[in-house]
């Protein structure tokens, strides 16, 4: 999950295309790597690499969930109920 930092506002005009797009989408809300990949139609591996560069450079801040999805019994149970209802 990613969010823009204050430093990004000043520097975003100088970013290349993918980096500017990613920073742009992170401006309004916390957003996941998967969502960025979907909205920008970029492979998820590319988004991961570019986003982690942006984190290292101080333009984005990363948040990690406390449990990985694979271990989260509650989440998977809710997901099953939600998918059944689709």
């Amino acid at each position, binding site marked *: 999950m990613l969010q823009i930092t204050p430093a990004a506002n000043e520097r975003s005009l100088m970013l290349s295309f993918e980096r500017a797009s990613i920073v742009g989408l992170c401006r309004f809300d916390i957003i996941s790597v998967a*969502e960025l990949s979907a909205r920008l*139609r970029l492979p998820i*591996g590319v988004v*991961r690499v570019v986003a982690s560069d942006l984190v290292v450079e101080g333009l984005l801040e990363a948040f990690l969930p406390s449990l990985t999805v*694979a*271990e989260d019994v509650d989440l998977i149970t809710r997901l*099953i*109920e939600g*998918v*059944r209802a689709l």
Partner: protein
Amino acid sequence: MDFGRVAVDQSIVLYLFGTPGQDRFGFMWNDLVRGALGAVVLVDSRRIEDSFPALDYFEHRNLPFVVAVNRFDGSVFHSPDAVREALSIAPHVPVLTTDARSRAMVKETVLSLLDVALAQAKARARKG
């Protein structure tokens, strides 16, 4: 690469990523499995052997997966049991029939995968 996004409820969005199953697309799989809940290996019943690389990949990973034999024009060329035997799929891996064009059948396939994911998550919770 195919991509799908489904809002499951107020707070959960499910993302589905698809790649071709042949060997040469294997480089994409490492990226996609990181953080993934699980995988569906979709078998083309006219070209079963094309699924070997994907099956090999997932059988060596600690990721929930199911095998779904895709139907074409309503007819299945091989039964799930025949596919299981032909592809030497381990007995604990669900093999089911699906139709990738049918919303209801795709939903059932996803639910089968989620059952496997839930069982694995519970097993992990008991250990930890």
